[in-house]
Each structure stands twice: as C-alpha cells, then as structure tokens.
C-alpha cells in the first residue's frame, strides 16, 4: 500500500476527516456568533468588528482554510451518504429505527442539506454584498473608513420571511450539531463510556447556544428595527 493511503482513503479515514472539518466548522460558528453579538453594542461597534474581520491578515488566510473545510465536509458527506446507500441495495419493508437511534443521528444528510441551502442564500445576501459590491455605504469614524455592514444586516432582518428562513436554518443546524458534536469525537477515536455523557451534554448545550444565539439576533432586530 502506498504511504498514508489509509489515512486519506478508507472508511475510517473519511469519517476522521469528516470529524476534523466538522470540529473546525464548529469553532468557526463560535467566532461568527461572537462577531454577530457585537450588533447589540450598536452600529459603530459592529462595523468596527466587521472591519477587523475584513482586514486582519490572519483572518484573510483563514478564509481560504474555512472554504476548504466547508468543501471537504460537504463533498465527503455526500460521498459517504452515497456509499452508505449502496451498502444496502435492497431495503427493509418495515423498519423500526426509532427503537434504537435518534432522528437527528439518522438524518445528518437532511439537516446538513438544509444548512447548505441556507449557506448558499447566506453567501449571496451577506458575503457577496460585503465583499464584491459597493451597495453598502461607507463612513469615516476616527479616521478609519468603515463599511456600514450593520445597515445591511439589520435591514435584511426587517423582512419577516427572511427571519423565518433564518431561524428555520438555525434549527436545522442545531439538530445537525446535536449529533455532530459528540459524533466527531467518536469518529476521531477520542471518546469512551466515561466521556460519553459529558460530550453529549456539552454538544446539546453548544447546539442550543448556536441555534438560539443566531436566531435571537434576527428576531431582536425584526422586533426593534434599527434606524
């Protein structure tokens, strides 16, 4: 066997890379939520935070690592799912899956797929607008030219159906993470019965923080439109 082949191309290895990219995306979510929460500190504070994210050299490099992480996680997830479907070419007439496993653990491709649809919409609405257009105005604060990203975000949250889509997407993400968090540790081999309970609890709390945190921001600015 060629060197390291098994570390990249085997069932166990694909699960490992799924886990590593998943954990990386989890840390990204925390950073993202942190920046979003700055919205509660007002327009200038948020625009300074997005200015930092758009100019800091480390963040610029990490953008590409992040994009790679997303791609590996998504492509690998689809490939694994296709292999898993092929592994049972004839299905059961009657299956009582609820007797032995949770819905969220069995339907990662559905919760993940919903998140992917939202991700595409999200990239169009925010990432594209912030990075590639001049649609948002700028203003100068303490000698620094800031994009008014606060206006872009808060004005999108005034549309009721956008807020509904946004909240539903984060519920899907919460369900995805509730299984994914502890599952990543299992796939990487960093888990046993002693840690199992704690990891599931931390995963559930983390999923709730992500789902509620992002949703709360959208709902707050829907109910209290910024000027």
């Amino acid at each position, binding site marked *: 066997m060629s060197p390291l082949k*098994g*570390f990249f191309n085997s*069932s166990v290895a694909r699960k490992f890379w799924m886990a590593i990219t998943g954990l990386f995306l989890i840390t990204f979510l925390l950073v993202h939520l942190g920046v979003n929460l700055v919205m509660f500190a007002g327009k200038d504070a948020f625009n300074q935070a997005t200015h930092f994210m758009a100019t800091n050299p480390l963040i610029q490099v990490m953008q590409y690592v992040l994009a790679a992480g997303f791609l590996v996680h998504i492509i690998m997830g689809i490939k694994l799912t296709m292999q898993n479907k092929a592994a049972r070419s004839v299905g059961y007439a*009657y299956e009582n899956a609820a007797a032995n496993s949770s819905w969220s653990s069995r339907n990662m491709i559905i919760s993940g797929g919903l998140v992917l649809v939202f991700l595409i919409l999200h990239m169009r609405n925010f990432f594209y607008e912030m990075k590639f257009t001049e649609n948002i105005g700028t203003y100068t604060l303490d000698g620094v030219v800031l994009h008014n990203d606060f206006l872009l975000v808060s004005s999108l949250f005034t549309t009721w159906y956008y807020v509904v889509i946004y909240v539903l997407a984060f519920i899907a993400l919460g369900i995805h993470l509730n299984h994914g968090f502890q599952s990543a540790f299992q796939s990487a*081999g*960093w888990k046993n019965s002693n840690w199992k309970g704690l990891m599931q609890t931390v995963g559930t709390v983390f999923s709730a923080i992500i789902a509620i945190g992002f949703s709360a921001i959208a709902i707050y600015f829907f109910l209290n439109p910024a000027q």
Partner: protein
Amino acid sequence: MSSNKDMDLLLKIWRQADANSKGELVDYNVTGISPDSSFLEMLDVLNEQLVEKGQEPVVFDHDCREGICGMCSLFINGEAHGPGDQITTCQLHMRSFNDGDTIYIEPFRATAMPVIKDLVVDRSSMDKIQQAGGYVSVNTSGNTQDANALPIPKADADAAFDAATCIGCGACIATCKNASAMLFLSAKVSQFALLPQGKVEAADRVKNMVRVMDEEGFGNCTNTGACEVECPKGISLDNIARMNREYLSASLAD
C-alpha cells in the same frame, strides 16, 4: 403482554427462491402458537403446517438455539433479532407478542450479505474480515508459558473479554442504516489489541481488517448507535472509538 392462551398470528415473511430471484413478502396465518414457545419454534410450527399443506417450508438460519452460536438472524418487526434487549432470535419468545398480531419477518439486509434463499443470507463477507487479521500468530504448541507470567490489568482483561463475547451474528450490520460492519470489526480488533499477545500485530491487523471491510462493500459508521442497542451481546461503541484510534495511528505510521 399476552395471557397463557394460544395465539393466532399473521406473518409477513420474505420468500425468495434463490440469490438471483426477485423475492416478495408473503402472508401466512399460523394458529395455536403457545406464548411460551420461542420464535424459532413458532416458525417450526408454521413449517409443519406448510408441509402438511404440501407447500415449501420457509428456510431460515439456526443452530444452537441457546444464544451463543450467532447463526440465527431475522429482522423481526423492524428490528434485528426482534424486540427485546440483548437477545438473539432463538432467545425471543412469543409472549413478547399478542394474539392477533401481524409480524414482519425479513432477512438481514446488506449488499455485502446477499440473500441465498428466503430468510437465509450469505455472511461469508464477515468471515473474510475475520480472516484478514482476527487472530494472533502465537505459537501455542510445546512449552506454553505460565499464564500469570504476563501481567494484564483487570480492566483491560475485562474489556477484551467483553469484546470477545461478539458471536458474529451480523445484527449490527443488519440494523445499521448504512449496513456498516464497524461494531463487529471493532470487537474483533479490541479483543486482541487490549492484550499483550495481540498488541504485537495490532497495527497490521486493524489496517487489513478495515481494508477488507471496505472492499466487501460495507457502509461507513455514522455513529447512530443503533448497533450497540440491537447487539445481542451488548458490544459497546467504545470498541469503535478504539478501532478508529488504532487504525488512524497505524495508518499514520505507514
């Protein structure tokens, strides 16, 4: 649960003439089933009734009928080995059902375990995984050394023994939504890797067994935990985590 009264049941059983035929679920009414009979005895009664009527009996796997050989299979009412925890099909009794129930009886399903006839599947792909490394090359003839000369921590001995209770029935594969063989394989890896005699070949063992598992077309583990719940011997998911650790460190050393 039911009373002591004999039961009448509607069975929906998968019938398939051979590996190449297209199978289907066929309805059978069985009558006068004692709640104290085992599930396999109930099938014996059905088969006697079928033979009396001049019909072909239902083919199913069984051997020891005391829960240790791993031969009986069957996916009963949507679960491997039917309802009930930590039992094989031969340990399932009809008192778990009620008079008038409809019971689905299907073969274990996996592309790597094709149906041979009716409810019998070919599990030789599991044998191939076992043959790829599920052994130790220790010379046991001649001057065998004293067992106590090799100190083994009690916890390791217990975990190895727990893994070794796997009877290779394939319920984990049948119940996994991905038809993954990782609980089976991880039990075989763990029972050796935890002991000094098995450590010597641990890296090659796990790499070879995983390679054959992938070649045979089993699915990937998505950590639903269904296998652990349905396993008649209660093999723990800890073994899969240990196998992942063993495999990843072994393949990094290539």
